[in-house]
């Protein structure tokens, strides 16, 4: 089975601060890991992904994430944060074999950045 945990339902910070959204996963093999963002009333937008190689991946909108196999984490980071980053962020995992193509999403973290 594959699962994704985003332990923080809400994160609030001030514009200019550094943000880090936590994500941990459980999967028996090497996963593909993703971050998506959902702005209010909108669909999912791709931010970045990790497949293999360099454990720090950079994505759109100035975001990056670090894959840490040792603690099964894939935290999303950005510095500095901007008020326009306020949205809901989803971490997702795609498995392999029979689970190829199936994205498992975390419950999401609502980020609020105060101007």
């Amino acid at each position, binding site marked *: 089975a594959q699962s994704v945990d985003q332990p923080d339902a809400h994160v609030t910070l001030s514009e200019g601060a550094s943000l880090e959204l936590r994500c941990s996963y459980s999967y028996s093999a090497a996963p593909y890991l993703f971050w998506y963002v959902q702005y209010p009333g909108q*669909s999912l937008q791709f931010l970045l992904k990790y497949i293999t190689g360099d454990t720090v991946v950079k994505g759109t909108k100035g975001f990056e994430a670090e894959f840490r196999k040792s603690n099964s984490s894939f935290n999303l980071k950005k510095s500095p944060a901007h008020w326009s980053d306020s949205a809901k962020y989803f971490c997702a995992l795609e498995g392999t074999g029979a689970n190829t*193509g199936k994205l498992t999403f975390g419950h999401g973290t609502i980020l609020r950045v105060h101007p």
Partner: protein
Amino acid sequence: GALVYQYPRRTICKSGTSMRMECQAVGFQATSVAWYRQSPQKTFELIALSTVNSAIKYEQNFTQEKFPISHPNLSFSSMTVLNAYLEDRGLYLCGARTGRNSDYTFGSGTRLLVI
């Protein structure tokens, strides 16, 4: 660019009736199409995955009898919610991609309200 259109954007149906929604990939030939549901205050749950040259695979808690999917070609998919009830409300998201190494492009979703 690669786009996924979903229609309708929003719909209301009476409890016990059925509702059909469509998904079209534009600008690319999708080899995989995945349907997700985001129920209120919840994350995205995979309903079914359709892959070229394979049968449509439904996830646990979702059945073909309840959510029949038609995928006549690589660019078009439709799904019907049969006998919709309150627990079926939510945002239904369609994602499509061209292969294992490409990212899913998601549509804007169809928001289903059941009254």
